[in-house]
C-alpha cells in the first residue's frame, strides 16, 4: 500500500512539474507583451483618474508632469519598474497565473457581470469539464464493448467497417464535423439548436435540462469521431490476448465464452489498451476544446476562440492554463489507472 501511495505522490508531483514548466515557458514567451499591457493599463487608469479628480492645471505641461508622476508611483507600487524577467517579478507572475489571478479582461464579463479573468473562466470550467468527461465516458463504454465484440468476430463486416472508419476518422477535423452536424441536424432537419448557449438563465429550474438539450449535438460530434478509434484499439489488444495459450486453455476447460471475453481477456489486455486509448484521448482534447466554438457551447474553449479575435491576452493566458490543467489531469488519471491494472509499474518505479 505504501508503495502505491509513494507512486501516487511521485506521479502527481511530476504532473504538477509539467504544469509549472508549461506556465514558465508561456510566461517567457508572453513576458514583454504582458509588460506592455500592464503599463498601458496603468496609464489609462491614471489619465482617467486625473480627469475625474478635476484637478485644475495652469498649463498642459503641468498636467503631463502630474500624470507622469502618478504613473511612476503606481508602476513602482506594483513593482513594474523591474523588467518582467527579474526573479522577484517572474516568481510573482508565476504564482498569479497558477492561482488564475490575472487581473481584468478588457472585453468580456462573467454572467454575474464581473470582468475579473478568474470569475469569467471559473464560471465556464464546469461546462468544458461536463462536455469532455461525458463524451469520454460514453466513448469508453462503447469502445470497450464494441472493441471486445469485434475481437470475437474478427474479419466480420462490422470489424472491417469500424477498423476502416478508425483510420479515416483520425483525419477528420473535429470542428468541421461539428459544422456538418449543425448543417444536418439544425439547418436541414431542425432537430437540435445550432447554438449551444442555453436560452434560459442559470437560475431557472429548467436550466440544467436546457443545458443538456443543447449539449447533445456537440456530444454526438465528439462521440462519433472517437468511438471507432477506441474500439479499434480495444479490438487489437483483446484479439492478441485471445490468441494466447491460457485463453485457449480456459476455452477447453468450458468457461463461458462471454466470461472469458469480458473478464479474462479484457482485463489482461487493459494496460496496453490504456496506453493506446490515452494516446487517442490526448490527441482529441484540443478537438473537444475547439468544438465549443462551433456550437457556441459556453465553455473555456469558446472563450479562447473569442479572446483570440480581440487578442485579450489575460483571457488567452487563462484559458490555455485551464487547458493545461485538464490535459495534465487526464494524463495523471491515466497514470494511476495504468498502475492499477499493471502492478509492476508501482513496484519498478
Amino acid at each position, binding site marked *: 500500500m505504501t508503495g502505491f501511495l509513494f507512486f501516487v505522490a511521485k506521479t502527481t508531483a*511530476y*504532473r504538477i512539474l*509539467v504544469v509549472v*514548466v*508549461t506556465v514558465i*515557458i*508561456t510566461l517567457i*514567451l*508572453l513576458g514583454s*507583451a504582458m509588460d506592455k499591457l500592464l503599463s498601458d493599463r496603468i496609464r489609462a487608469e491614471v489619465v482617467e483618474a486625473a480627469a475625474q479628480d478635476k484637478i485644475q492645471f495652469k498649463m498642459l505641461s503641468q498636467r503631463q508632469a502630474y500624470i507622469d508622476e502618478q504613473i511612476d508611483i503606481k508602476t513602482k507600487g506594483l513593482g513594474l519598474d523591474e523588467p518582467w524577467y527579474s526573479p522577484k517579478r517572474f516568481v510573482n507572475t508565476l504564482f498569479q497565473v497558477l492561482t488564475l489571478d490575472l487581473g481584468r479582461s478588457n472585453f468580456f464579463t462573467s454572467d454575474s457581470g464581473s470582468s475579473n479573468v478568474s470569475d469569467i473562466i471559473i464560471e465556464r470550467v464546469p461546462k468544458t469539464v461536463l462536455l469532455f468527461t461525458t463524451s469520454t465516458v460514453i466513448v469508453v463504454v462503447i469502445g470497450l464493448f464494441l472493441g471486445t465484440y469485434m475481437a470475437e468476430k474478427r474479419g466480420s463486416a462490422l470489424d472491417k467497417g469500424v477498423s476502416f472508419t*478508425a*483510420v*479515416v476518422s*483520425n*483525419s*477528420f*477535423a473535429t*470542428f*468541421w*464535423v461539428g*459544422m*456538418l452536424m*449543425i*448543417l444536418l441536424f*439544425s*439547418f*436541414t432537419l431542425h432537430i437540435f439548436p*445550432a*447554438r449551444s448557449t442555453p436560452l434560459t438563465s442559470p437560475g431557472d429550474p429548467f436550466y440544467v435540462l436546457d443545458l443538456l438539450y443543447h449539449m447533445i449535438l456537440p456530444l454526438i460530434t465528439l462521440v462519433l469521431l472517437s468511438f471507432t*478509434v477506441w474500439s*479499434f*484499439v480495444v479490438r*487489437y*489488444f483483446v484479439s492478441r490476448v485471445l490468441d494466447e495459450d491460457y485463453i485457449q486453455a480456459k476455452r477447453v476447460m468450458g468457461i463461458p465464452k462471454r466470461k472469458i471475453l469480458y473478464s479474462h481477456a479484457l482485463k489482461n489486455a487493459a494496460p*496496453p489498451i490504456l*496506453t*493506446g486509448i490515452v*494516446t487517442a484521448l*490526448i*490527441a482529441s*482534447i*484540443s*478537438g473537444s*476544446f*475547439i468544438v465549443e*466554438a*462551433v456550437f457556441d457551447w459556453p465553455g473555456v474553449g469558446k472563450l*479562447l*476562440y473569442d479572446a*483570440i*479575435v480581440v*487578442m485579450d*491576452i489575460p483571457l*488567452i493566458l487563462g484559458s*490555455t492554463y485551464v*487547458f*493545461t490543467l485538464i*490535459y*495534465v489531469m487526464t*494524463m495523471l488519471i491515466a497514470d494511476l489507472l495504468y498502475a492499477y491494472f499493471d502492478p509492476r509499474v508501482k513496484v519498478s518505479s
Partner: protein
Amino acid sequence: VTATESAGNFSLLLRRILHTKAALVGFSIIGILAAMTIYALVAVPLESFSQWNDPGFWIDYPKSAAPSWINLMLPEGNLPNHMILGPSDAKTQNSSLGGIPTNSFLYDIDFRYNSYPTDFIIDYCLKYGEIPPVIQVDVTRPDGESFMIYNSPLPSSTLSDNLSNLTEYCSRIFSTDESIRDNLQAYTGRFDYSPDLSSPQKMIFSQLDKDAVLRGKYLFNVTYYLFDPEDKVENTKVILGGRVYGLMGTDDLRRDLSIGIFWGAPVALFVGLTAAISSVTIGMLYGLLAGYKGGRYDEALMRINDLVISLPTFVFLVILSITIGSSIFLITLFLVIFGWSGIARVARSLALQIKNLQYVEASKLMGETDIKIILRHILPQLLPLTFASIALAVPAAILAEATLSFIGLGDPSIPTWGSILHDANTASAAARGLWWWILPPGIMIAAAGISFALIGSAIESVTNPRGSANQSKVRFT
C-alpha cells in the same frame, strides 16, 4: 547484407506496398492533390493568392453565391449565373460619329434563367484630356426592343498641370443609379404592366406583357465618346449579378472559394510533408542516439523527451503564433519543435534491440564512429518504420495547422482550408445552410489526411504484419 541486396529488398517491399488497395487509393488522392497544386501554380493568378484577404480584390464577385452546377440538380428553374465580363469578352468597334471617335464594347449575354439577375454593374477606367468623354450604355433585348439606359459625361479633368496632361478616372455605374431609373422611365409605356423602377434589372430582363423573365440573347453595348485622340479606355467590364457562381461558389466576403480550395492544396502539402519529414527525422536520430549510446547519456536525453511528450502542445502552438508570428513557415517550425518527441521514444527502444546485434558489434570493433554506425547500419533497418511514421504524421500536421487556422491563428496572408472554415464559422455558415462554404475545405483536409494515413498503414501492414494499434506515433496537438 550487401548494399545491392538491401536495395533489391527495398524495391520488392515498395512493389508489395504499391499492390495494396490502401496504398493505391492513397496515392490516387495524392495524385489529385498534386494536380490541384500544379493547377493552382500554373492556371490560377498569383494575385488571387496574395490578395485573398483584400476585400477590394473580390468586389466584382457575388456575395455568398452557391456553386453554379447546382442548377443541374434543381428540378425546375435555374438560378442566374453571376457573370463578370471583361474587355476580352467584348467585341470592340471603333468608329467616328460626326468627327467624334467612339469606342464601343459589345457584350453578348445569353440569359436563359428563370429568375432575374440580382443587379448589374458597369465598371470602367479611362485616361482622358481636357474634355471629359461621354459614356453611353444601350441594351438590345431578344425581342428587338432597345433601351438606352445610361448616358452621362465623366467628370472634367482635374490634373490640367500634369506632365502627361491626361487624367485617369475609374468608377462604376450601379444598376441602382438614379439616372438609369430616369432613362428607363421613358420605356415604361411599352410594357403591359407597370414595371418596378427601383430594380432596373427586372425591367430590362422582363417580358413586355407580364412580370416574367424574357429569355434569350441580350446585347449590352457600352460606348465611350472620346473627344481627344489621346483618350484611351483602359478597362471596361459588365458585371451581371447572379445567385450562383463558379465551381464552388463564393463566401460572404465575395471570395471565389474554388481559388481558396485550390491554393489550399500546396499549402497543406507543404505544411504536412515538411513538418512530418522533419519531425520524424529529428525524432529518429534523437531516439537512436539515446538508445545506442545508453547510460547517462540515454537517461538525460530521455528525461528531456519525457517532458516534451507530456507538455500540452496545443497551448504552445497558440502562444507561439500569438507572440512569435503566424506565417506558414513559422507554424511549420512550431509543429516540428513539438512533433519529434513521440517517435524518439519508439526509435530508442528499437536502437536498444539493434545495437546488440553482431554486425553492429563488429562495426564497433572495427572502430567506426557512433554517428556512422547509427546512420549506416541502424537507420537503414528502420527505413520502413520511418516512412510509415512520416506518412502517418502528415495527417496530424495538416490537422494541427487547420486547427490553428480555425481558431484564427493561421497565416493571415494566404488562403488555407482551416482559415476558410474559420471564416465560415464566424459567419455562422452552418446555421445559415451555406453548405458550399463548409463542405469542400473539410473534405480536402480529410482527403489529404486519409491519403497519407492509408499509405502509412499499407507500409505498416507489409513490413510489420502484426500491425500496430497506435495509428500515429507523432502528434502535433
